[in-house]
């Protein structure tokens, strides 16, 4: 079972934050197939948000095929995003390459904010390019 939290200053809509947190947990293997998500009542009692926001997030996750509601029992994970053993095995070498890159960036005089900005903008361009190619 995971616990949700909300960042009021992130500017991201609360229902999107909930979706991101579920996906994050799925990706890191904290949630596996068959696990139950917290009930709507549990979520609103914990983070004090509108119940419809939680319902909307769960509906979105259901639409993506990640979860499935079972009436009277709750909402259950039907698919994991952790990409199997192969993907997890790939984590380690990728992390090493990224660490090397970060070392070079620091050596070139970039501070934390510079690094973050560069990472995000590159990541965004990369995603948009791929999305454009697909569309």
């Amino acid at each position, binding site marked *: 079972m995971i616990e949700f939290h*909300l960042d*009021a200053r992130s*500017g991201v*809509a*609360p229902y999107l934050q909930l979706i991101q947190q579920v996906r994050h947990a799925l990706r890191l293997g904290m949630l596996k197939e068959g696990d139950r998500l917290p009930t*709507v*009542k549990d979520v*609103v*009692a*914990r*983070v*004090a*948000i*509108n*119940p*419809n*926001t*939680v319902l909307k997030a769960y509906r979105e996750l259901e639409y993506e095929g990640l979860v499935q509601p079972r009436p009277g029992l709750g909402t259950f994970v039907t698919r994991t995003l952790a990409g199997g053993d192969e993907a997890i095995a790939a984590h380690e070498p990728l992390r090493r390459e990224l660490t090397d890159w970060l070392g070079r960036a620091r050596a070139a005089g970039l501070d934390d904010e510079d690094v973050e900005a560069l990472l995000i903008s590159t990541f965004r361009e990369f995603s948009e390019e791929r999305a454009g190619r697909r569309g």
Partner: protein
Amino acid sequence: MTDAVTTTGLTKRYGRRTALSDCTLNIPAGHVVGLVGPNGAGKSTLLQLTCGLLAPTEGRIEVLGHTPHTGSPRLGFVAQDTPVYGNLTVADHLRFGAHLNPGWDKALAQRRIAELGLDPSQRAGKLSGGQRAQLALTLAIAKRPELLLLDEPVAALDPLARREFLQGLMSYAAENGTSVVMSSHLVADLERVCDYLIVLVASRVRVHGDVDELLGTHHRLTGPRRDPDTLGPGREVVQASHTDVQSTLVVRSTAPVDDPSWTSDRLDLEDIVLAYMAQAGTHGRDRVLEKR
């Protein structure tokens, strides 16, 4: 599903002061509705008209399909400053709640009091503001209303008590699908809990609608100075400000603004409310019309 609240030209005057003028609304059931506006905008008046404590001067109001009256089992109301009987104990409050409400949910009331850690033998006058608000909320929800009205319930509470109050309220709403209308002069109090918003400034409803819809249709446009009227049809300018070279507009528009000379930004709920307050003119903030 019937609307929770429908008003047509609803107006309330106290002598010559107008507390609410020409309010036409319909609030669908099943929502948590935020009623926002500066102090004295008429929020309390609208809520008291809704629960039947006040009668309209003009216009009509229907709540859950009927003309509202106090003493209805279908409505729960937590008044401003969450009044309770200071010399009665917490247990006394639950007892009179049970005596006065045929639909009283004793188990719910007792569970809530236990969860809140309130001492049943404590006199209500000795409770903290947060505890008193929780007691008032317990009384209002244990009668199991279909529509729950709350007048500035968290205004007097510290951040922790505010959070706890909203947690209790939301978990009740989630469990029972109860419609909720709550007022506040601070958008931040309502932002996360409401999915429907009514902005009331200087006795008039300025905007109302589904929160997601409001967020999706309001934009801040920044660009070279120009006349806002050239924006075209279907785009309502809520607020405009100009420097000698630049115009900044807040517009409501269902279609996206694709004119490349404008830079379009998203607005959060607070920005939208502030834009409507500014539109109403600041003079409205100074007038205190609420009758307490």
